[in-house]
């Protein structure tokens, strides 16, 4: 059994640190140039260096997305940019366009991964890129377990599979709804998520969707149940989507899959409901298993704008802990008050509960509640916590 890499998204340096501390083996980030998700807070070169230094210190990796489908206007500076990525120690780039792949091959020794934006759905197309000297491909999200297994059996390429997060309802990279409806280029980072809007459906001139809007929006992917299958198949990297997501989301999802992968690889008994409950704490859209069991059904679609808010509210991020006084300095992330029942979520131990007795600011004023975003507060916690541990409300 090969233990697969757990790969997590990081929209900024804080999220990157959280992802790695909570158990990701590698993170993928967007640079300021040549990357999709233009609105995700992207990294400039000095920040990419900081990211690489932090990750490498922990023995982990950083991949940079250079996955736009560039037009003629977008090519200037490509070679210099790729060279600077190599210089600051980036472990691989994720690409979708021949010009980026060929420039990286000729001007750098960067490891190349092929992005899901080119929708690789079969081993023949995977082997095309393997023959081009590509180390790894990210598979299309339209594949079933059976197809992934068949693909694994017919290629020597490393394969990366999405296990969690948002899904394009279209084949990735083949959708230009956004270009047409909003003039924003989906393949250059401008996607307006038009597939999540409400529509009426007509047959000729007759409206046929009755009361409910026609919807094609996809549920998010969640594949806790299938991780052991993916490990058995020999998938090299398990990927979580969501460079736009919060630190709490990243920490919760990453840590759930971290523990799950470790437990499977250690041959422990797997208590699936426990992991399902845990990952659900980060859920901000309904989830399903996507294509893992084959063609999608109504259970993989969002209808009637159904959505759920996270049941667990993230209220504070631990900055430091004074063991002598049992006091943590916590950065406020959401409103909380004295008397609230809360739990500490940590990469170091199973979730522990406590009650907030007293909230004190750094000038030693006693507060009835924590009202100000990012304010640093002192809180009594009766057990040892560490930097990056998270406090969340129990509802």
């Amino acid at each position, binding site marked *: 059994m090969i233990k697969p890499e757990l790969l997590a998204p990081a929209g900024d340096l804080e999220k990157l640190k959280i992802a790695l501390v909570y158990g990701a083996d590698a993170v993928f980030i967007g640079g300021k140039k040549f990357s999709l998700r*233009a*609105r995700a807070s992207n990294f400039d070169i000095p920040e990419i260096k900081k990211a690489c230094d932090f990750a490498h210190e922990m023995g982990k990796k950083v991949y940079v997305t250079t996955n*736009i*489908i560039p*037009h*003629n*206007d977008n*090519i200037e500076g490509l070679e210099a940019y790729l060279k600077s990525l190599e210089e600051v120690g980036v472990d691989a780039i994720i690409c*979708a*366009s*021949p010009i980026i792949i060929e420039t990286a091959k000729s001007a750098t020794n960067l490891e190349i991964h092929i992005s899901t934006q080119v929708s*690789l*759905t*079969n*081993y*023949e*197309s995977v082997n*095309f*890129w393997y023959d081009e000297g590509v180390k790894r491909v990210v598979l299309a999200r*339209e*594949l079933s377990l059976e*197809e992934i297994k068949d693909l694994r059996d017919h290629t020597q390429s490393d394969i990366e599979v999405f296990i969690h997060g948002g899904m394009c*309802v*279209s*084949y990735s*990279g*083949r*959708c*230009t*709804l956004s*270009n*047409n*409806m909003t*003039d*924003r*280029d989906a*393949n*250059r*980072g*401008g996607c307006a998520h*038009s597939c999540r*809007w*409400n*529509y009426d*459906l*007509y*047959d*000729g001139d007759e409206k046929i*969707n*009755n009361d409910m809007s*026609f*919807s*094609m929006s*996809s549920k998010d992917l969640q594949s806790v149940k299938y991780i052991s299958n993916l490990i058995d198949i020999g998938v090299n990297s398990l990927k979580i989507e969501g460079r736009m997501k919060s630190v709490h989301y990243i920490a919760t999802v990453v840590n759930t899959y971290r523990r799950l992968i470790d437990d499977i690889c250690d041959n422990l008994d797997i208590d699936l409901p426990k992991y399902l409950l845990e990952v659900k704490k980060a859920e901000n859209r309904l989830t399903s298993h996507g294509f893992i069991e084959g*063609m*999608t*059904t*109504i259970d993989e*679609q969002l*209808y009637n704008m159904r959505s759920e808010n996270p049941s667990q509210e993230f209220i504070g991020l631990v900055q430091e802990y004074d063991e002598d006084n049992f006091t943590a300095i916590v950065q406020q992330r959401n409103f909380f008050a004295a008397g609230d029942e809360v739990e500490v979520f940590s990469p170091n131990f199973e979730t522990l509960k406590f009650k907030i007795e007293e909230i004190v600011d750094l000038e030693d004023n006693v507060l009835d509640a924590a009202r100000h975003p990012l304010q640093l507060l002192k809180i009594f916690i009766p057990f040892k916590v560490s930097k990056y541990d998270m406090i969340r409300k129990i509802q």
Partner: protein
Amino acid sequence: MKFAVTPFSIESINNLCNHGADIFVVGTEEFSNRLAHSFTMDEIETLVTVIHQREKEVYISANMIVHHSDLEKIESFLGEMKKLEVDGIIFGDLAVYQIAKRLEIQHLLIYNPETLNTNYFDPIFWDKKGIKGLTISKEITLNDIKKIAEKSTIEISIIGHGHLNMFHSRRPLIENFFKYNKDSFEQYIENRNLKLVEEIRDEAYPIFQDIHGTHIFRDKALESYQEIITLSKIIDVFIVDGIFKDTNYMIETMKNYQLILQNNDPLQATNISKHYESDHDSGFLYKKTVYDK
């Protein structure tokens, strides 16, 4: 520059030849997405004979996204096409390239993944792979088409006229919607009269579901009447895609382009373009899409 058209019948071939068609793009639904008309294998054989008799060319559309269950079938299909001595094979999935290379027919291939051929380097890359040509993506401006074509050493085509696709999902989205509402859906599968209207917009986007999934198209058809004189000097193949239309429309369209090119008259081109403006537009020829923050 050659004109490529999508015929709706074997009978229409002669007439289309008489109105300037040089290449016929045909296919069968099993291996092709979004065909104007799906022909049977027997019909394709006849089409090749008829078209070659008129000394015109046949391009086979095999632009499906390939999953493992399709591999054997598409390999045998490509083998058949080799035997029929077709003049080109349009593909969108690299599996087709891999198979064609084994069959030693990669020199017939034209790469059209619809959204991925967007800059001058794409034809340079694909020339090295030994293929015949490449279709520039639909979202590229006229200026960029010029720049891409100038540097190309392989055949450059564009879909210059017709309803452009803007979305392809593997999912059966229409069927699932009606199943969710516990309504019957069978009558809506393969129904090409369906349209989507977004809640704050007026445009009606054609949508249909078939064996390859669900497809959505632009509301207006693209036309290039005012650009055809320029295009004729810079690209090799101008494709008129007749999806959602019929033979009469194809003939009418071809007549218009022939007239403009024969008379070399920009004013006439403007008038023809105006005549169709209620349901045609210039697509992305002059529209730059944005992508920054």
